[in-house]
């Protein structure tokens, strides 16, 4: 079984990754990172290596995957369905009502469309 982390190079993406690693250890599941940031800013190689080492120690595997779908929400859900993912971990940030109305919200789409449990974590804690 696998834990899917929707990663982006922003506070909410970081938070999702930290929580995703915890979740993987807790569930004894492999970790799958899907990059949803605009542009191609992946995690840097050193950090990935450290993370992989840490996971292998616990007997877990790390994979990074991308999808041909342009929309990040669709991409996350497609990969989650395809891999039979156990749980999706996403990070959120406060969004105003108007902001969501006009610009839409990827997180909302993932929450509504996902066919597996979703763990949502907030970056801007109290």
């Amino acid at each position: 079984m696998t834990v899917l982390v929707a990663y982006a190079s922003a506070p909410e993406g970081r938070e999702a990754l930290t929580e995703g690693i915890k979740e993987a250890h807790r569930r004894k599941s492999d970790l799958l990172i899907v990059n949803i940031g605009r542009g191609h800013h992946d995690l840097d190689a050193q950090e990935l290596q450290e993370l992989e080492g840490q996971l292998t120690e616990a007997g877990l595997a790390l994979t990074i995957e991308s999808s041909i779908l342009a929309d990040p929400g669709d991409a996350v859900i497609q990969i989650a369905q395809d891999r039979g993912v156990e749980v999706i971990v996403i990070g959120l940030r406060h969004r105003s009502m108007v902001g969501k109305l006009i610009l839409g919200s990827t997180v909302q789409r993932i929450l509504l469309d996902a066919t597996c449990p979703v763990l949502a974590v907030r970056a801007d804690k109290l």
Partner: protein
Amino acid sequence: MLDSAMAALASLADPSLLIMLLIGTVAGLIMGLIPGLGGTGAVAILLPITFGMEPPQALALLIGALAVVHTSDTVSAVLLGAPGSASASVTMLDGYSMAKKGQAARALTLAFLSSMAGGIIGAVGLTLAIPLARPLVLSFASPELFMLTVLGVSLAAVLSRGNIIKGVSAGLLGLILGMVGTSPTTAEERFTFGSLFLGDGLSLVAVALGIFGLAEIASRASQRRGQKQIITLGGGWGQGIREWLTHWTHVIRGALIGIWAGVLPGVGATAGTWMAYGQAVATAKDKRQFGKGDPRGIVGPESANNSVEAGDLIPTLLFGIPGGVPSAMLLGMLLTYGIQPGPSIITEHLDLMYLIVWSFAIASVLGALLCFLSVKQLAKLTKVPFAILAAGLVAVMLLGSFQEGGQLGDLWIMIILGVFGWLLKSTGFPRAPFLIGFVLAIPLERYYFLTDSLYEGFDWMARPGVLVFLAILILPMIWAFIKFIRTRRKTNLDDGHRDEQPEDDEAPLKNSTWSLTASGIFFVAFAAALISSASFSPEARLVPQLVSTGGLIFSGFLLFIEIRRRLRDRTPKAGETLAEEADGIRGTQPAKAGWTLDAKFALKTFLWMTGFLALTAAFGYLIAVTIFIPAFLLIVARARLKVAIIYTGVLYVALLALPSLLPIDLPQGWLNTLV
């Protein structure tokens, strides 16, 4: 209304119209197969043939071709994984995956049927738009029409893919180029440098074929090898039909998205199909199969890319602002017949409107039918290497652009603009706003002066219609600005649905010396226009000065960005991290592209075209063809000798026969005038 519609249908029973529609459909299907031509190439190549015809025949021919270009472009996308046009690359995602599983026939059935339905729904949309927009259009006076032309150019610039500043610069330069020739208000010559030939303005066909056609040939002529894979159509025809019937909602949704994308200026078939694909994915519950052969991934986009062309016609015919590049040329054609799109076409030429609708619908059905019947032959055609096609295409395009004015000068302009178009394409400038600006330059100026002479000061600004258009003009800009700020702050991660196409490799020379040169050319051109317009009379001066000042501001900004980027690259430390970052972004992206292989090849191709034109000028067209074609085939395309001889022979005979079949003149050389 119904009377005119039925009368138009009855008129299509006229054999000459039916034959033209059939010829147009077949030509459109063939041109859809040739990579890079698409609707733009189809209309630009067929347009010269129509110069001697009556408007109904000409429209039947052009609409027939335009309606089916996106039906056949699927074939190579599905069978070879090499799309015939940019919009077919969406179909490739799922269609090619299906073909790899041995179900090419299933994918093609879905695609052809959806294309047909998309065309028919598009035609229905066009029909419904006529009575809906009629009262609105009839209430327009010159201030609204002026605002519409401004809106046409600026929306095309803002909505085109890529950088907005680049889009606006391209649109403004198109406007300036459109003003070459006699001023519509004072009848004085502008930007002609005393040349009589430029006094008539630049020929639309030459500009369109140069910016799009020749540029496309130059950037693709390096493809010497055709696809060698063995193609199997496989089974699944019946399954395709059944699936198509179960996904009918996707067909309709795709078509509606296509119409909407068509109505918006500058949003063409490519963006429309990606929107339709994104929509199909977003509404699907089980997304696993997308990209691996999901029928819904074919049905929606295929239906959309045909209805886009019908949607394009809605603003073109009703408001006189083209929704896309092919319809910009159609608009130019209508103007040469003295048919003014906009209010007058609704009142005076309603029959032509309905003729267009019927032609579109009939051609869509006919196109799909022909595709089903001839899919095996079409598949073979897609195996011909592009370099071999390029030789004939150059000959045909040069001949085509000669027809409008019968002057060799048009051909030289076409090649110069071809080089410019290639530069724009490779450095990521959108070309659609350029051509739309070119077509709308004269109407824009005319409506402005009408408005200015009919209203006191800025009174016209207070008309409700004008205010609405102003709002439509400003909102996308505010929108773009908000998005820009959010991107900079990286607060846009959660901003909802993104269905834009993935970053493509269409602009390989972006951020290089080339794009710096391109920005420089823009800046110099606007500066030159501003300086030379100072000598015009105040009335002829106003609009060119406004446009070139705006152009200077935008292109100056572009130049500033390019120079700053270069300076940053040069400082070694920052340069290193940037280069690393670039490597991380895309392994192969050249940090500083100088003379890349493609650039060399493209410029070589342009030299070949120049050589061909010089031969034509010296010895006449027929002799030039017999020298150019075999030479190009043997040296550039590296074809076999037998191919070259047969190719040249067939083309020569066809060219000899052509003038007696169609109203076409072959360019005469300097030698012919002596004899």
